[in-house]
């Protein structure tokens, strides 16, 4: 490594600085910067790869395994629930990616560099949210589409496959992208609130995957409604052709509830972000 002991002098002495002709912060630039950030770390590649592999692989595996039983109608389960079955596990990767977008800035201390470059915090959060949403929307839709194709391949062999133009199947292809994108933003909000990767992952998984099932144990209408409204439960129906649990909210209603909950969490996180010291 060469180590020059002096700097080459700048071409011209720094003139008094005026704003004219100087670049300004714009939202487009923040988007470009956040896009550069997300594509230049390995954790993004790893989480997106596991999102795809888990979702498609596990879907194919289960469909291969249960297609026979489903055809005999001895499984007693809705066939449509299986063609995106792997997403139940793959979605964890979307949650983690969202969390990392915020929490990795704190664990590395990079948040101070980010905010020195772009001191207004709401636009920074908006840029992060936009980039994350776009990435997961595209990759999520691709993932759920490929998962459906893979799962359906095995169901087709038993004669119980879906038509790919079935409106519920088409809705699920797009819905997988929408659901995973909102789940990622949910993680982002959580990561920004907690500023700690492991903590946010634990809370996120507990909230979406464990508490969502536990509230069903509360007796009566309270338990029923809590089950319907828990973020994970409300959102998932959009990303399945048919849900295992027939009592959940309809796909679009459920997704609306989930998106609303996520927006609320994001607002709280953003409000704290704008007030707290970096």
């Amino acid at each position, binding site marked *: 490594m*060469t*180590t*020059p002991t002096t700097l080459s002098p700048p071409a011209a002495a720094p003139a008094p*600085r005026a704003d004219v002709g100087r670049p300004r912060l714009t939202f487009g630039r*923040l988007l470009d910067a956040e896009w550069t950030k997300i594509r230049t770390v390995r954790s993004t590649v790893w989480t997106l790869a596991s999102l795809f592999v888990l979702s498609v692989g596990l879907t194919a595996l289960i469909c291969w395994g249960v297609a026979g039983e489903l055809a005999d109608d001895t499984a007693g389960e809705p066939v449509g629930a299986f063609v995106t079955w792997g997403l139940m596990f793959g979605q964890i990767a979307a949650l983690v990616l969202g969390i990392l977008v915020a929490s990795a800035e704190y664990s590395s201390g990079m*948040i101070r560099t980010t905010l020195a470059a772009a001191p207004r915090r709401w636009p920074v959060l908006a840029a992060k949210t936009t980039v994350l949403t776009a990435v997961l929307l595209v990759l999520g839709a691709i993932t759920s589409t490929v998962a459906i194709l893979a799962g359906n391949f095995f169901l087709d062999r038993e004669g119980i496959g879906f038509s790919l133009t079935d409106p519920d199947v088409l809705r699920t292809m797009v819905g997988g992208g929408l659901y995973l994108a909102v789940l990622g933003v949910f993680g982002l909000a959580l990561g920004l609130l907690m500023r700690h990767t492991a903590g946010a992952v634990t809370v996120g998984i507990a909230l979406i995957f464990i508490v969502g099932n536990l509230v069903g144990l509360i007796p009566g209408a309270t338990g029923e409604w809590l089950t319907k409204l828990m973020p994970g439960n409300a959102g998932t129906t959009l990303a399945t052709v048919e849900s295992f649990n027939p009592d959940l909210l309809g796909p679009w209603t459920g997704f609306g509830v989930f998106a609303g909950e996520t927006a609320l969490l994001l607002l709280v996180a953003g409000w704290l972000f704008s007030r707290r010291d970096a």
Partner: protein
Amino acid sequence: MITAERLTKRYGDKTAVDAIDFTVRPGAVTGFLGPNGAGKSTTMRMVMGLDHPSGGRVTVNGRAYRDLPAPLHEVGALLEAKAIHGGRTAYNHLLWLAKTNGIPRRRVDEVIGMVGLDAVARKRSGGFSLGMGQRLGIAAALLGDPGVLLFDEPVNGLDPEGIRWIRNLIRSLAAEGRTVFVSSHLMSEMALTADHLLVIGRGAILADTDMSDFIARNSAAHVRVRSPQGGVLAEALRERGWAIRRDDDGALLVDGATSEQVGDVAGSRGLYLHELSVVNASLEEAFMRLTADSVEYHARTDQPVPAGV
């Protein structure tokens, strides 16, 4: 130009920075000197808009940091903790940073060359040594060719070569007319780099002075002389009008004279000398006297230092 007015930061009931006023001017290195916990880093974070002041205000070029239209073009900073994601390459770190403020790609290559990181620019920064990490932080600070630069303890943990490099860099940035604000807890370091001195202790400004004034006031040298005929020598020296003090071991401390003059006086009287030396009062001592009452964490000398510390 950085201007703070009644700038205050409280954490709970602890006041880290207590209504301080100061101005950091262009074309000079302003040293921000204070013991551990004095409030240097907190002040710098407030300048950068990272911490919100509890009171007062601070502006850069007349504006609050958050109102700067393109901050990296006006301010560059190397803050205390490393602020880089170790999983990203040096080049990509500078690239996303450049993009926020519309800085062209070629400037990224340029600053990498300036700090001498060409060979490792495509390596992930997590594996960098302390010195390389510091250079990357400096490259980031220089990215927008800013007129105002902040360095928080830039030489901490560096080897002598790295220290000299940063010292030269800081001096050359000020020589180009930029505003340079550098914190340290070492007076000796400041004496070598700073033109102006801002001393902070327990969140209050204790001194705001030109470095040369501070040195002139605090580093008056004296001559130490020891003789078996101390009484006679003291008399002879007093006749010349120099102030004489006696050191603990009986040696004489002569203010206002050179060692040659003292030696000549002794020689002309035929007196024996066992010791003759010039003693420079250290700036470090002057700094410690200044901040003695405001040191945050006094070492307890009545207790043994635990092993491994």
